[in-house]
């Protein structure tokens, strides 16, 4: 399954979650630094959230722009 983290394509297995996509993108540490993950509509999503094919997620701080 292909998802996009900050516009970069990442391949994950079915059953894998937002956390796995961030690990794949090497960005999990960003969450420890108080950044958050948002979906393409600007809603925050949890690290255990399920992914779906083609889903786009972004790691940003409150002041960053998507």
């Amino acid at each position, binding site marked *: 399954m292909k998802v996009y983290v900050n516009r970069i394509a990442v*391949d*994950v*297995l*079915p*059953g*894998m979650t*937002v*956390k*796995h*996509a961030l*690990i*794949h993108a*090497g960005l999990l540490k960003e*969450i*420890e*630094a*108080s*950044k*958050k993950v948002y*979906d393409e*509509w600007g*809603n*925050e*999503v*949890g*690290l*255990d*959230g*399920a*992914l*779906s094919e083609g*889903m786009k997620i972004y790691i940003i701080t409150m002041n960053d722009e998507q």
Partner: protein
Amino acid sequence: MKRLKIALCFIFFFTLAMGSAYGGPSEIRILYVNDFQGFAEPYQPLGSNERLGGIAYLAGRANELRKEKPSLLLSAGDMIQGNNWANLSQGESVIELMNGMEFDAMVLGNHEFDFGKEVLRKRISEARFPVLGANVEGMRGLKPYVIKERKGVRVALLGVVTEDVPISTHPKNVTDLKFLPPIDTVEKCIPELKKDADLIIVLSHIGHPIDRILAERVKGIDVIVGGHSHTKLERPVQAGNTIIVQAREHAKALGVLDLTIENGRVIGFEGHLEEIKPRIGGEDKAALAIVEKYKQKMDAVLNVRVGEAEVDLDGENVRKRETNLGNLIADILRHASGADVTIVNGGGIRTSIKRGEIRVKDIYAVSPFDNYIVAIRLTGKQIREALEHGVSAVEEGGGRFPQVSGLSLKYSPSDQKGSRIKEVLIAGQPIDPDREYIVATNDFLAAGGDGYRAFGEAIKESRDFSIIGGMMKGGKVAYSESGRWLRDVVVEYLKEVKKVSPRVEGRIIEVY
């Protein structure tokens, strides 16, 4: 005067009760949660500086909100598996809690299947509320939908779960079950529900992006209460005439949606999420008692003796050399997944176990992460590359250092990174660079954790998955069981074999 007051009260409540019947507007409150996953106690999420959640506080707030308006308390699934508080009773604790909180309905989430069909049937039979799954065929006790009445308004609650369940839980957990496409299922049910209900609410465990597609494709849904994607929808989203809501995860939020209904139509709505965190006096005492009761039971389970170590089990040196505990864990992964070999990161093993009795809590300390087993087909060349990466930070004590099973390797720590591996044998034979082997690992490495790229490359080549003969097939994935933590697999293994005495046997040899 007293009689007059009584008469006025009677007229007031009679008017309220009959409002809907005579076509006047009615107000109904929908309270909702999703993806609780057994997080009963408040906790500090990664990146947060405060403790959030706590189901007793959520229950307390739900009680307050229910007093204000006729309400329905709903769950969009993934309730009974995840945190140890739920897992150690196989979800019994959660159902008891939900019964106490007087939930009106829940839909099954994919993780409800993680303890197997028999356990799920038992949980469904214990629930004093309907458990829904309109697109699941073959599961006794499930209902496709129910109709509840509030203030004269007939509310249909229809439940659907992701059709990906068979590839996100172990295949044995869903044998003989059929998962139909959720959107088609909802579309098929709507005309029937329209006959008997004024309002149609879909409890959906398919994720927010798919909820939006559902709302666009299927007309006639008033509200979608979603789950699965753990989306924090601070305000309801409107897609056509459908309102979509979802309340984050782990009891960190309680969703509130107030609907104004007239002549069977939603004419107004307002919604928000109530953030849940500990507040003095805000807890529901009965819910807290259930949380405490199962915490005590959890402590008892953690103290259960599962086996005996006949030697000290070394978890200290797992980042720099082969250890007997590393061998044991790697062997268990290989055994559980049926793989040819195991490569697992030493950094995932956190402590040692002294010779003597092994208790559940010892295993949980060794393997505290919520990791699960994955097995992927890699070529001999990819395995060698993975091992090169594994030994590339040995001088820094990097967590990537491999603990292995089914293979042996010789490497030179003094050589340049990337050319340290000197020999790899699988089943005693030199590794064939072109042949595919099934390699067990954990989901962390499979996702590219600790910098391992080989698994990710293989996953990239895997496009289509299906279940054949109880195994995940398709591309490069041979095994994946996301609903069972590695530590629980180790506990089960030890219960079975009772005594262990693993040795360092030359699987990883330094050469100079």
